[in-house]
C-alpha cells in the first residue's frame, strides 16, 4: 500500500465516522439532550437541590442528594468546582462533596444519552448505576478516613446560611422536563412499538438507488471496523443540520435580548429535522428491466407518531405555560452548550474514526481484550492520562470497542475518563489539599477498576 492510498483510507474512515455520527447519533439523541441540558441549567433553581446539602442534613439525605445533584446541576463543568468547594466548606462536608464531584461529570444527560446510543444501553445504565453507588461509597470512605479533619473544619467555619434558602421547582417545569425526556427516549429507544413501520409508501425515482451506490463508494461501510456508511436519508439530515447551524447562529446567538425571525426559523428546522429523522427511509435499487420499483421507501414509524405528539406538546407548553423570559434563558443556555461542545465533538469524532484505521486491533486485544484486573486498570490509566474534552470520550470508546476491547475495561475507561484527568486532579488539589486528593485518586482508580471487572463479569 503506498502512502497516498493510506492517507485516503485514513480520511475515509474519519469522514465516515463523522457522517454516520451526524446522521445517526446527533439527531434523535444529542439534539433533544442539548435542549434538556439547557433547561436544567436555566429553569432549575440551584437552591432546590442545595437545601438538602446543608450541614444539618442527615447522611441518608445528603449523600443521595449529592449524587442526584450531580445529575441536575452539573451540566456545565464551570458550576462543578464552586459547588464542590462550597459543599465541602460550608455544607454537608467532605463526604457528600466528594460524591458530588465523582458523580457529576459521569451522569450528565448529554453523556448518558450519547453513550447509550453510540455504545449501548447496557454500558449507559452501568455508567449511571455504578457511578452513583461508587460515588456514595467513595464519599463515605473519604469522610471516614478524614473524620477528625472534618470535625475540626466544621468547628472552624461558620454555618452555611446559603444552604437554608428554600426554592421550589414549579410543577410546570417538571412536566416540561418529562416531555423533553420523552422526545429523547422515543427517538432513541429500540423497541418494536417505536421502530415498526405502520404504513409505507414509495417515492419513485431511479436516482435513489444510484445515489446510494455512489455514497457507498465514497464512504464504504466496513462492519469489521464498525463503520456504518451513509444513507440517502443521512445526507438529507446532514443538509438539514447545516441549515440549523446557520439559522441558529443568526437566531439564537442573541436570544437573551429577544426573539427574532431567525429564532423561529431555527426552531422550526429543529422540529422538522427531528420529524424527518423519525421516518424509516430505505433506497431501493430495483432493476428496471424486470419492472420492479425503484425509489425511496418511506415508513411511518411508531417513533414518528410519538415524536410529533411530544414535540407539539413541548411547543405548546413553551408558548403558553412559560414566560418569554424563561424560554429565552432556556434557549440561550442550550445554544451555549452547543457552541461549547459540538466543535470539539466534531473534531474528536473525526480523529477517533481515523484512529480506527491507525491502531492495530491486536494491540487493543492483547491489552484489554479480556476482562482481567490488568485490562481494567489499563482502561482506567488511559482515562486518567489522556484528557479528552466532554463527551469526546464516547467516540474514543467506540473506537476501542470496534478494535476488540472487552466491555468491562471499556466501562472502567468510561468511568475514569471524566472523573480523573490531570486537570481535574489539580483543581481538586487546590480545594481539599494534597493528601486528600491523593487518597481520592487512589480510591477512584480502585473503584473504577472494580466496576469494570464486575460489569465485565456480569455480561460474560
Amino acid at each position, binding site marked *: 500500500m503506498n502512502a497516498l492510498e493510506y492517507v485516503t483510507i485514513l480520511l475515509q474512515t474519519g469522514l465516515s465516522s463523522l457522517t454516520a455520527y451526524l446522521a445517526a447519533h446527533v439527531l434523535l439523541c444529542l439534539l433533544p439532550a442539548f435542549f434538556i441540558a439547557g433547561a436544567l441549567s436555566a429553569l432549575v*433553581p*440551584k*437552591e432546590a437541590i*442545595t437545601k438538602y446539602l446543608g450541614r444539618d442534613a442527615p447522611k441518608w439525605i445528603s449523600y443521595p442528594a449529592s449524587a442526584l445533584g450531580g445529575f441536575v*446541576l452539573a451540566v*456545565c463543568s*464551570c*458550576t462543578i*468546582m*464552586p*459547588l464542590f*468547594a*462550597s459543599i465541602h*466548606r*460550608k*455544607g454537608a462536608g467532605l463526604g457528600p462533596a466528594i460524591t458530588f464531584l465523582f458523580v457529576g461529570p459521569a451522569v450528565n444527560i448529554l453523556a448518558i444519552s450519547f453513550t447509550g446510543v453510540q455504545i449501548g444501553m447496557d454500558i449507559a445504565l452501568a455508567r449511571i448505576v455504578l457511578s452513583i453507588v461508587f460515588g456514595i461509597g467513595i464519599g463515605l470512605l473519604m469522610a471516614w478516613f478524614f473524620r477528625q479533619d472534618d470535625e475540626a473544619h466544621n468547628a472552624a467555619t461558620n454555618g*452555611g*446560611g*446559603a*444552604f437554608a434558602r428554600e426554592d421550589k421547582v414549579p410543577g410546570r417545569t417538571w412536566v416540561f422536563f418529562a416531555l423533553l425526556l420523552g422526545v429523547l427516549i422515543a427517538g432513541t429507544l429500540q423497541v418494536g412499538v417505536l421502530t415498526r413501520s405502520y404504513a409505507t409508501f414509495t417515492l419513485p425515482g431511479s436516482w435513489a438507488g444510484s445515489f446510494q451506490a455512489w455514497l457507498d463508494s465514497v464512504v464504504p461501510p466496513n462492519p469489521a471496523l464498525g463503520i456504518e456508511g451513509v444513507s440517502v436519508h443521512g445526507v438529507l439530515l446532514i443538509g438539514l443540520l447545516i441549515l440549523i447551524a446557520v439559522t441558529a447562529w443568526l437566531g439564537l446567538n442573541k436570544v*437573551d435580548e429577544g426573539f427574532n425571525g431567525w429564532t423561529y426559523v431555527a426552531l422550526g428546522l429543529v422540529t422538522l429535522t427531528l420529524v424527518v429523522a423519525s421516518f424509516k427511509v430505505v433506497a431501493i435499487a430495483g432493476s428496471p428491466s424486470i419492472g420492479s420499483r425503484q425509489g425511496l421507501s418511506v415508513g411511518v414509524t411508531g417513533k414518528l407518531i410519538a415524536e410529533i405528539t411530544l414535540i407539539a406538546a413541548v411547543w405548546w407548553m413553551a408558548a403558553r405555560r412559560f414566560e418569554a*423570559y424563561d424560554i429565552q*434563558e432556556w434557549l440561550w443556555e442550550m445554544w*451555549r452548550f452547543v457552541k461549547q461542545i459540538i466543535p470539539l465533538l466534531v473534531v474528536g469524532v473525526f480523529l477517533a474514526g481515523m484512529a480506527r484505521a491507525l491502531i492495530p486491533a491486536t494491540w487493543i486485544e492483547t491489552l484489554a481484550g479480556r476482562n482481567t484486573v490488568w485490562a481494567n486498570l489499563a482502561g482506567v490509566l488511559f482515562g486518567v492520562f489522556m484528557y479528552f474534552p466532554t463527551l469526546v470520550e464516547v467516540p474514543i470508546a467506540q473506537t476501542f470497542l470496534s478494535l476488540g476491547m472487552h466491555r468491562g475495561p471499556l466501562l472502567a475507561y468510561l468511568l475514569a475518563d471524566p472523573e480523573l484527568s490531570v486537570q481535574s486532579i489539580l483543581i481538586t488539589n*487546590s*480545594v481539599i489539599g494534597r493528601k486528600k486528593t491523593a487518597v481520592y485518586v487512589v480510591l477512584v482508580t480502585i473503584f473504577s477498576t472494580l466496576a469494570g471487572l464486575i460489569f465485565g463479569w456480569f455480561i460474560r
Partner: protein
Amino acid sequence: MEIKILGGGCARCERLERLALEAAAEAGVEATFTKVKEMDAIMGYDVMSTPALVIDEEVKSSGRLPRKEEIAEWIRAAQGT
C-alpha cells in the same frame, strides 16, 4: 456604591456583569464594578454557586441570572438606604 460579580469568568458571569452595568446605567447610579474570580474570595460570601451578584457587600443573587429590572430595583433600594 460597590457592585461585585462573583464567578470564575464563565459565560454566565460575563452576562451578569453586562446586565448589572446596564441596570446601573438605567437607574442612573454611579457604581464601581469588581469581578471576583478567586475561589477563596468567593467562598467568603454566603453563596453556593456562581455567578453571584453582590451589592454593597450584600449577596443579592447566586446561581442564576436575575432580570435587568430586578437588578435595577436592588440598586435603587441600596441607593435609598
